[in-house]
């Protein structure tokens, strides 16, 4: 199985329902998918694994829709992005509901990011190196963070990022530009100089 190409494994899953072939695909791509979620959730390992599992589950259920127009990894990352987008939207709605409840109760509170609850967990459970990365990524808006991590950590070019996120190339470029500018400013302000 380890020698089979992605296309061959996908065909075995789609046509024969071969679970061993899907097992091999998960082993091959668990690392980039989980790393992608770790960066987007600012280091929440448990949440990342849950989202990654949902991603592979959706990939399995929709594997017949893979047309090989892009690589299997790009297709998988598109699903991962959609899973994160859905999760993020759900969190925003919950936050909005909470805020409405708070207004009704006339109970003022400072606005907070939907990932604030994640910060506490990653702050206590990760090394300073990861803390630096996630602290820096926390400066960005979600779309900016997605585009920046896809380019600088996962190594995708602008066209592939547009393909994964469904955003226009121009929009990806402006997210990248703004995101990188914010990151560079943050790093310089915090004394991170290029050696």
């Amino acid at each position, binding site marked *: 199985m380890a020698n089979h190409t992605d296309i061959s494994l996908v065909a075995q*899953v789609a046509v*024969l*329902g*071969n*679970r*061993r072939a*899907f*097992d091999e695909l*998960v*082993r091959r791509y*668990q*690392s980039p998918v*989980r*790393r992608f979620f*770790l*960066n987007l959730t600012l280091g929440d390992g448990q949440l990342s*694994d849950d989202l*990654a*599992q949902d991603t*592979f*589950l959706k990939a*399995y*259920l929709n594997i017949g829709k893979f047309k090989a127009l892009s690589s299997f990894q790009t297709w998988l990352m598109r699903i991962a992005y959609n899973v994160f987008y859905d999760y993020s939207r759900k969190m925003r709605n919950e936050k909005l509901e909470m805020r409405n409840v708070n207004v009704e109760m006339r109970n003022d509170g400072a606005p907070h990011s939907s990932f604030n609850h994640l910060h506490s967990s990653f702050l206590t459970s990760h090394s300073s*190196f990861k803390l*630096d*990365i996630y602290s*820096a990524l926390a400066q960005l808006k979600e779309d900016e963070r997605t585009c920046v991590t896809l380019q*600088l*950590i*996962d*190594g995708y070019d602008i066209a592939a990022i547009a393909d994964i996120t469904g955003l226009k190339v121009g929009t990806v470029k402006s997210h990248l*530009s703004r995101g*990188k*500018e914010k*990151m*560079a400013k943050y*790093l*310089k302000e915090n004394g*991170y*100089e*290029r*050696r």
Partner: protein
Amino acid sequence: MNDDNDMLLQQFFSDAASQHIDDNGFTEQVMRRLPLRINWFNRLWTVSCIVAAVVLFTLLHGWELLTVQLEVLFRTLPTASLGKWLMMLVTVIGGLLIAGASEVISSERVRR
């Protein structure tokens, strides 16, 4: 975005870019969550094909064709270079049986 900033960011993210996350049982967890839907669909498809084959065999009097072919085969067997066609038939059937059996075994093993 100037080159200095680009270099700074590339250096900052270089360790993260090469980070590999160990599996640590993740794949097993995913495989346990997979539904059996595709297997059921395949089984349904297999049964449908078998039923269709039996119906066509019956409607088209397949046994007559089979009888004629077997008769021709056995009558010409002594004169033909033995087993060219027979060997081909046995090889194909054997290959299909081995491939099918290994697929069934591997699927069952992974499911367990």
